[in-house]
């Protein structure tokens, strides 16, 4: 894996193009965008601007929906979720930075459905990596990478947005 493959600008552009294509093909009118804290929210802020969505950007912190709370306890850095639009009947573009096990997306979907019943949800991620533990797939990805089990890919930001691969530890 070369550092060139982790060029955030290039990944963002590919994700943006893929989202435009999917939104047009599926004829998703008046979509609203939701970013998952923290990395997904940074990515969503850029895409929301570039795609020119009229609804304000929504934010989800999925800490209250995580499936590992009984093991690891409360996330000390939890943020407020904020969906400044009605979810019922809405087409939604859900954005996260890295799709790995799928558990974060599972939690985010559960939280969205507690706000209402959306029409369709499109999942866009900056990086789709191997290691899925539940059957969740992205509709759009900026790039795909194969990593060793001990390796993690981490987005830092928001300025500048950078991706790095780390081996071992958390």
């Amino acid at each position, binding site marked *: 894996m070369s550092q060139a493959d982790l060029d955030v600008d290039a990944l963002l552009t590919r994700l943006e193009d893929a989202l435009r294509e999917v939104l047009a093909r599926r004829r998703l009118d008046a979509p609203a965008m939701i970013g998952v804290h923290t990395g997904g929210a940074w990515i969503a802020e850029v895409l929301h601007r570039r795609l020119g969505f009229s609804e304000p950007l929504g934010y989800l912190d999925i*800490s209250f929906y995580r499936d590992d709370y009984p*093991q690891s306890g409360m996330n000390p850095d939890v943020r407020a979720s904020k969906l400044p639009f009605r979810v019922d009947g809405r087409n939604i573009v859900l954005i996260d930075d890295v799709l790995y096990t799928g558990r974060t997306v599972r939690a985010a979907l559960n939280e969205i459905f507690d706000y209402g019943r959306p029409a369709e949800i499109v999942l866009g991620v900056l990086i789709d990596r191997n290691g899925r533990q539940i059957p969740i797939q992205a509709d759009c990805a900026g790039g795909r990478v194969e990593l060793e089990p001990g390796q993690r890919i981490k987005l830092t930001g928001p300025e500048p947005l950078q991706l790095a691969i780390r081996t071992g530890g958390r």
Partner: protein
Amino acid sequence: MSTAAPADIQLDASGRLRHFLTVEGLNRELLVRIMDTAESFASVTAQNVKKVPLLRGKTVVNLFFENSTRTRTTFELAAKRLSADVLNINIATSATSKGESLLDTIRNLEAMHVDMFVVRHAQSGAAHFIARHVAPHISVLNAGDGRHAHPTQAMLDVFTIRRCKGGFAGLKVAIVGDILHSRVARSEIWALNALGVDEVRVVAPKTLLPAHVESLGVVPYHDLSEGLRDVDVVIMLRLQLERMGSAFIPSEHEYFQRFGLTGRRLEKAKSDVIVMHPGPINRGIEIDSAIADGPRSVILQQVTHGIAVRMAVMSMTMRAGSDMEAAA
């Protein structure tokens, strides 16, 4: 603080909340973390389903040895909005049902595999006592013990101040009324000072102030109009009529004449002052109805915030499986 320091028992080895018994001794970082977590829970009420699955499968026991409808209700709602199951147990308190019988009650509930006790008791130290004796996986929250502490009330009050004023720096806060019998006042004074307000005043007749109250880090006033001058926040306390015999105040009427919060007195405070009261209100004794129901009052916001704050401390104290093993 050195012997059986009350702050220690409520923290685990890594400094995280294990029980929530008092705010005294908790540092600013932890107080801010509780408020930040409560802020996140406040957004849950915007959901169609006003519930998050965090405490699914956990059982919370409201163990109330003393009646308090509002506190019990908000703890119950907080637990339910976290998806916990709630058991309400009202135990009429009597001088004889203490000591061993209290522990027997606890042991029986433990045998039913519950996860958290919310304890209200007329005796100071009751929640600490239970926390010292429960099984290691159980968390204890103090919902008011005698004159000692009512930490979730103190936290919801500072949370309300932060939401209304944006922060604590530069604020002047007056706590008015029955400081002596109040379990909230001490907790509040500690929290306000730890969070860095400019000045905490206590305003009360001498008979309702503890001796050496200055040592708590407050400025005492015995005249309400003087004490309210230029304050940003007024916290009224309920006159605990049921806890006082005679001799503390001459009469309710005279108390209102001297220490009742009226519109005319409130003019001495800053124009954007907020008025708080933990409830239930004694209208016409400590506060004029026009003020309690008026535009400066945030009394009902306090009730709403109480649920978010209680959700925060419940989710932060619920024992995580991993450090249970580490502690064992």
